[in-house]
């Protein structure tokens, strides 16, 4: 591939990768209810952030990192590369806490080192011992090294296996940014699980790897290193580009004159014809300078892109995980909806006398002229006549409970019944539900939350003006009646007779979660009720069989008249009031008990259709197409 073509490819990838990152961040925010593992914990995402975003589209340079387990001489090897004690060495393990970076002359003028290592806090190198200090932040000490070939960054990294886990994080960050890894191995550690895990990732990202077997006993280890290497390569899927052995010579290491003996990997049949080991020391830095930069760079970028789009380890797996979690949740949500349906068989109705008196009041308010005067005269006389009877009754039975207060009391009992049933059902859901929504449900089921909700409901319930509620319902229904049925006066006359016969039993079904298919089956009863707070009211009649048969049709049909029509209308009045009350309760429960849970569930279950999800899918497809 020539340079021009390569540049175009890089440019394409760079823009795609940038929009991918934005989409992913958005997607993670939207998927928060599904509780997937954080993106930052995913290898491919870190690769995207730490390798692809900074390096795609940048001028070509190569990042070389010395990596390996603790206390096996990484810093010693690095110092040999640097030609000076740039990194402090110590006989104690886990000494190097921070990365040190050698920068070629003029690098800073062309590039921004910070963007290459976005997670590190950059410091100019002043003392080798700085890298030994512990700190919260990830530091990187940089130093200009004149002898380095241009476009070559060389790093010393913290260890990958000590009990200071923050070192691992730092080493991983450097690994992702790197193109070439100098893998420092020893006979003790070449097969350690932590080491294998680290290099397996490097292998998957297609890094160029130079293996250095440090602290070898030469010549005793001469027959062993091929076995070590074989195990290492088999376990990590790495094809090393070069192999070096360094002897266990502490003095030479300290004086920076450790020899590096290059070894060739024996070809399959070359066992017998293995040449005598070449024991001339190589200059590691010079060997590095001879590396074919563009090829390696291309290779590692492609490797990282492949990891990003890897069906098992990359974004496709993440998307699959999200979709499955979302489908899971949608099943749960459907169950939650169907299970949380609460049916109240006998929602209390306000007394008929109450309705009648309200209707009378409405009537009076809508009378005009002499009819009004006469009516009010009658009612004054009537109440005057009735006064002694009322007074006597009060004296005998004590002050009666105002009918509205009585209704308030009965309705509160019904409300309590509904709330308790919802609590029970939610509890059951929490006990058998999945981990995503259990904590949310359990939070609202705690004792404190319960008593808070009850207090709040009671306050709201006590503060309600039932009179006004009833008035507005009657207002509405009377208007309806006036429009459809002009013979209002007849109805008014029969009011008492009719109301005596109607004993409605209203039952209510509340969809407390009001979400998903079950919510759609039953159309919202009231226009103004929130779409998610669906309720259904059945008015049933005890007494007055004709009215029971009449139903809705009787009310709307202009032809029908008389008592049956009136009874049906009376019914509707009751239902309308009950519906109003039930929707009040549903909305309160919805907002106070469940909060944003239904909306969140809704969003989470349709995640796979969200713009961010589709955008991520598109980007992945684009990258796959480019590769």
């Amino acid at each position: 591939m020539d340079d021009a073509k390569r540049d175009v490819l890089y440019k394409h990838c760079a823009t795609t990768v940038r929009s991918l990152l934005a989409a992913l961040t958005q997607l993670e925010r939207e998927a928060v209810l599904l509780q997937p593992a954080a993106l930052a914990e995913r290898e491919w995402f870190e690769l995207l952030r730490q390798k692809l975003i900074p390096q795609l589209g940048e001028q070509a340079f190569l990042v070389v990192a010395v990596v390996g387990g603790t206390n096996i001489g990484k810093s010693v090897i690095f110092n040999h590369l640097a030609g000076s004690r740039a990194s402090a060495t110590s006989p104690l393990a886990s000494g190097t806490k921070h990365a040190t970076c050698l920068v070629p002359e003029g690098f800073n003028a062309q590039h921004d080192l910070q963007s290459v290592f976005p997670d590190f806090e950059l410091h100019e190198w002043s003392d080798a011992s700085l890298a030994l200090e512990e700190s919260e932040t990830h530091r990187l000490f940089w130093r200009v090294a004149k002898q380095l070939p241009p476009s070559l960054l060389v790093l010393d990294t913290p260890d990958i296996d000590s009990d200071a886990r923050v070192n691992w994080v730092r080493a991983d960050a450097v690994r992702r940014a790197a193109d070439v890894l100098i893998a420092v191995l020893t006979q003790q550690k070449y097969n350690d699980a932590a080491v294998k895990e680290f290099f397996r990732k490097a292998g998957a990202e297609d890094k160029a790897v130079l293996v250095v077997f440090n602290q070898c006993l030469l010549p005793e280890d001469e027959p062993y290193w091929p076995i070590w290497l074989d195990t290492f390569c088999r376990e990590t899927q790495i094809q090393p580009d070069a192999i070096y052995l360094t002897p266990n010579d502490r003095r030479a290491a300290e004086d920076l004159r450790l020899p590096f003996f290059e070894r060739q990997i024996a070809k399959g049949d070359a066992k017998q014809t293995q040449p005598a080991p070449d024991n001339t020391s190589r200059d590691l830095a010079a060997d590095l300078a001879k590396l074919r930069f563009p090829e390696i760079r291309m290779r590692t970028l492609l490797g990282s892109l492949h990891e990003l789009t890897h069906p098992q380890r990359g974004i496709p797996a993440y998307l699959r995980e999200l979709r499955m979690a979302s489908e899971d949740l949608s099943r749960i949500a459907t169950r939650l909806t169907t299970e949380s349906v609460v049916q109240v068989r006998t929602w209390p109705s306000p007394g008929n006398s109450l309705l009648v008196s309200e209707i009378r009041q409405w009537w009076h308010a809508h009378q005009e002229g002499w009819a009004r005067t006469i009516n009010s005269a009658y009612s004054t006389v009537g109440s005057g006549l009735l006064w002694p009877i009322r007074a006597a009754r009060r004296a005998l039975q004590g002050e009666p409970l105002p009918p509205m207060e009585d209704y308030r009391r009965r309705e509160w009992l019904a409300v309590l019944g509904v709330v308790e049933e919802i609590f029970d059902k939610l509890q059951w859901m929490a006990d058998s539900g999945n981990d995503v929504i259990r904590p949310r449900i359990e939070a609202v089921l705690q004792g404190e939350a319960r008593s808070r909700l009850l207090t709040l409901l009671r306050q709201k319930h006590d503060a309600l003006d039932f009179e006004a509620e009833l008035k507005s319902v009657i207002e509405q229904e009377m208007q309806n009646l006036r429009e459809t049925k002009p013979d209002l006066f007849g109805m008014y006359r029969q009011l008492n007779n009719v109301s005596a016969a109607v004993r409605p039993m209203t039952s209510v079904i509340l969809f407390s979660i009001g979400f998903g298919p079950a919510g759609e089956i039953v159309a919202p009863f009231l226009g103004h009720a929130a779409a998610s707070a669906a309720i259904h009211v059945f008015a049933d009649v005890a007494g007055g069989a004709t009215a029971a048969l009449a139903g809705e049709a009787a009310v709307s049909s202009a032809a029908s008249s008389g008592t049956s029509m009136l009874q049906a209308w009376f019914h509707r009045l009751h239902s309308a009031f009950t519906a109003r009350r039930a929707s009040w309760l549903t909305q309160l429960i919805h907002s106070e008990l469940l909060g944003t849970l239904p909306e969140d569930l809704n969003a989470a279950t349709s995640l796979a259709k969200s713009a961010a999800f589709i955008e991520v899918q598109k980007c992945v497809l684009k990258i796959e197409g480019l590769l």
Partner: protein
Amino acid sequence: MSLTPELQQLTILAEIDDLVRDIRRWLNDAPPWAPARRNRSLVSKILDRVTCLRIRLESPLVVATFGGTGTGKSTLVNALIGQEASNSGRQRPTTTVPILLVHPDIETTALGLDLSQFHVKKIDAPVLRDLIIIDCPDPDTSEAAEFGSNLARLRAILPQCDVLLYVSTQQKYRSARITEELTDAAAGCRLVFVQTHAAQDSDVREDWRKSLAPEYQVPDMFFVDSRRALTEQAQGQRPSGDFGRLLELLTNQLGTSRRVAIRRANLIDLLEEALNVCRANYDRELPEITKLQEILDQQRKKLRDTLTNQLRDELLVNRNLWERRLLSAVTNIWGFSPFSAVLRLYNGLGAFIASFSLFRARSSAQMALIGAVQGARWLKSRVEEQGADSSLERLASCGITDQQLQESRMVVSGYVHAAGIDAEQFADRRELHHLRHQAATVEGQFLGDARRDIDELIEHLALQNCSAMTRYRYEMLLLLYLGFLIGRIGHNFFWSSFLAPILGQADHPEPLLTVDFYIPAIIFLVMWSAILVLSYTWRLRRGLSTKIHKLAQSMVVTRISEGLFPALDHVCQSVISDDHRLTELRERTSRFRRELADAVGFLGGQLR
């Protein structure tokens, strides 16, 4: 008198057995609380291991190597026994099947070890006379503890070991995997720390000790060169330096005499560890129980306040009932006398009238006021009616409504669930009528207390108002009129109408007094009596409201013994006492551990 070592041993053993028995008893007595059950299963698992250890108490100690691959475990073992018994090499990992090295004289089947896991080698080496050495595979080449991996094999062996030879090198002493594995492995084991590769590596023992210090007790560390030691032994020399000391430690200190002490210390370590875990879990879960208790207390208090307020209000309203009680108390004290007869008459009439109203409004406070005899009868009838619908009404008269009961139940059930108390403890409260029943019981108790207090108050008031002086005054005032009346009548009867004419003092006898006289006389008698009675009852009722308020106050302070949820109260209490028992057991174990620690202080171990 000091005990012989053998007796001392036996005493300690007996004490351990006692402890284990107590722990077992604790295990079998779990409150209906989920965390209690969960934690018990953990302890009972450990206890099984303890039993196993207890059986092996006298058999030779099992010493196992532990450390990363390539740290020289096998080389060290070879050096210890003075011959090449376990393959050591430069390929990682070298040892995959654990090797059990045992003296030919020791019967392997009696060790209580699962021998199929090992490659058993019988070797006649001096160090093996009192020990069994296991050369273990490494914990750090396997990435997961899959079946057949080195890590899985290692984990199977570790619980059977008594002492671990923790072998490490300059390269590996800070390795995360090994330190993590050690945390699990070291539970119930003594530790000996060995740094190998002395020929090539620097001495990092100080840094190693520093990194171990937070979690382990590190009495000694050995820096050995196993290869040189093996050559020395091959040449017939005694191994020198740290290796010599290590060999000395294994051969002499881990012999028969310390065997029991070490095993016992391990055993107690395990127990303490398990109990510590329990303790931590309990500490995490107990706040929920405390919260539940608080809420139950709150509910109880609310109930009591409602009852008290209701009682007080009704007591304040029902003045005539007070009067009746007070009057009857006073007349009881005074016995029979003219004024008390008047009081009785008045009281009797009052009772006759009140009995009508009483049958209509049977409020609790009135009942409490009626007094012991009538009240008890009434209460009994109440209890009989408890299943009936009317109980609801009666509760409402005490200010306890269905709504309140339901609210209480809802809130409490939230707490119960959060606390992890078994649902069936709360199940009998599901039905509202159960709650009503309980509320009625509570109310009954409350009224019983109230009645006693009211009785006392009445007694007190009565006594205050029936002093001789008061009585004398009222009797005199009554008698004054009666005396006058009798004087008038007597004068007329004996003198004016009879004796005076006979004695010639009058010309003719006066007529006897007629109805015209008696009617006003009686009217005045009644009026006079009424004035006296009223003034007396007024006197009785003086300061009554303050007294009633005081009474209510004192009722608030008294505790209702049972709330609406007695079963839950009981569970809470049993959880708390269970917690106390756990603390006590743990403290006993820790004390034991401290006592035993000195005996094995020459070996390393986990710190708590």
